[in-house]
């Protein structure tokens, strides 16, 4: 049944249906309502989750690590500075191969302090060893929270998964969302059997050990193997989601009108929706333009992205965060995807939307218009910046 709800509510509903054993969470704008809705479910007896109201995000992730190592199904949610505080422990969660699923309400990192959306928090956690998924709408945030749970818990993957949704634009905006029936969602997510639960005292295991130069490297390589198992699992779980729910998500990214496109944007998050409107309008005017919207950002699907964009002449890669002294992180990934290929589009890097700066259809139209005359290797370009 179609309902109107905020992105917060959509994510909280998915969490309610997943009904994890433990949710350890600390409120932070623009994530707070997820924590509030979930606390409401717990205290009204709608879920049997143990809610741990911790004193900081560092503690939130620490409690998640403990609960997940014990063998529980564990979730959390955060944003911006909260994620920054979590990152120390997030590295440990991924190294311990704990399938913690986390909603990240994307918000700019301080300073200056700002509460609005950009992707600097997601990029901060880029190398922490968590799978990262980006979503365009509240509906996608809902669907991918369910998909993320199965992905995280897949044997061979066993990693934390971050589901990104743009702060305010998606978290606080009321949109049409069609949640699944509880029994359908629960059946899809299934039950969780932990690998080596700490509380299984009949089979004692060592968690979080000291690893010196003789073992550290091999343990990190094992984490790489977990990431390497993600792409195949991602597609399989999307397929299962379609079979069990009728909702079709296919691929690591959504190609939008890319066939025969000569110019294309690559973008993550809610701005992809605005870009689709622009693509449709320019297509109506006979222009061969398209869009590639990332879902799976980590691991990065290099080969698939390169193949999807192989025939495109010019590609503008839109990063919603800076990597000071370097190109944007998404641009760098795109460049790496094409580095050994004969056929590659000219790439140009745009920085947009920092600290919640609005990105309009008119601005994206302009990007398409100027793309062909912008020479590669001219550094960063900015959308909607006063200079």
């Amino acid at each position, binding site marked *: 049944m*179609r*309902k*109107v709800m905020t992105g917060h509510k959509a994510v909280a509903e998915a969490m309610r249906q997943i009904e994890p054993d433990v949710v350890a969470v600390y409120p932070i704008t623009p994530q707070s309502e997820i924590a509030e809705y979930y606390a409401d479910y717990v205290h009204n007896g709608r879920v049997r989750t143990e809610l741990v109201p911790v004193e900081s995000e560092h503690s939130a992730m620490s409690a998640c690590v403990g609960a997940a190592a014990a063998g529980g199904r564990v979730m959390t949610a955060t944003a911006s500075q909260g994620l920054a505080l979590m990152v120390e422990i997030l590295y440990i969660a991924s190294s311990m191969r704990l399938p913690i699923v986390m909603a990240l309400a994307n918000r700019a990192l301080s300073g200056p302090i700002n*509460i*609005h959306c950009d992707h600097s928090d997601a990029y901060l956690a880029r190398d922490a060893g968590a799978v990262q998924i980006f979503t365009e709408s509240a509906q996608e945030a809902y669907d991918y929270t369910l998909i993320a749970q199965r992905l995280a818990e897949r044997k061979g993957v066993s990693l934390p998964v971050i589901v990104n949704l*743009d702060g*305010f*634009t*998606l978290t*606080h*905006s*009321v*949109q*049409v969302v069609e949640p699944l029936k509880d029994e359908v969602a629960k059946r899809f997510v299934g039950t969780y059997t932990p690998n080596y639960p700490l509380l299984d005292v009949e089979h004692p295991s060592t968690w979080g050990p000291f690893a010196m130069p003789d073992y550290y490297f091999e343990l990190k390589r094992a984490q790489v193997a977990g990431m390497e198992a993600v792409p195949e699992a991602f597609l399989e779980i999307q397929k299962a989601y379609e079979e069990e729910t009728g909702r079709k998500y296919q691929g690591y990214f959504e190609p939008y009108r890319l066939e025969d496109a000569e110019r294309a944007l690559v973008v993550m998050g*809610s*701005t992809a*929706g*605005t870009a*689709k*409107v622009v693509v449709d309008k320019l297509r109506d005017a006979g222009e061969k333009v398209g869009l590639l919207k990332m879902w799976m950002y980590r691991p990065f699907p290099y080969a698939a992205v390169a193949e999807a964009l192989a025939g495109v002449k010019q590609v503008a890669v839109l990063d919603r965060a800076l990597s000071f002294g370097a190109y944007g992180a998404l641009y760098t990934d795109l460049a790496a995807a094409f580095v050994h290929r004969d056929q590659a589009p000219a790439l140009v890097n745009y920085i947009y939307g920092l600290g919640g700066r*609005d*990105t*309009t*259809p008119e601005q994206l139209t302009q990007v398409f218009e100027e793309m062909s005359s912008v020479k590669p290797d001219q550094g960063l370009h900015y959308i909607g910046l006063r200079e």
Partner: protein
Amino acid sequence: MQEIRWHGRGGQGAKTVSQILAQINLREGKHVQSFPEYGPERSGAPVRAYNRIATEEILVHSGVYTPDVAVVVDETLLETENPGDGLKADGTLIVNTTCSPDDVRRRTGFEGTVVALNANKIADDAGTGFPNIPMLGAVAAVLGCELQVVEDEVRETMGAKLSSDILDKNLVALRGGYDAAKGVSVGR
């Protein structure tokens, strides 16, 4: 697609009625968005909220700059918030005021359709005191929503939180706003 911009003050419930309007439009089978503009949040500060209403899926996620309807819940925002800014020439400005439509045109510089209603009085007479609900009624009338659909949604949304007495008073306030604006429909 139609776009609506609400001007209110923190605590007046502009965001709340923007969300209820989205629910009304959903009942009509439309696609909707409703989102507030967030700044430093404090009671009494000017706030804006927005609605998008369309027959097809709404993909755009940027701000609203050229609304079809602008709604002013608090008259003191008429000059300071420039509610006519970007408002389409064939759009409608709906204002909670004791002034005439011509006065509103003079004060805002907007020369198109103006709906002026005293939502404060409607709310006071109904015994609720909050002008947001009569303004919701007025907006729904201008958009051409059926009163029954509007009432059903308000009854369902607010009924969960309010006593039946207060709910009934709110429904009176809603109808008062709806009736005051009826006949100025801009079509859909």
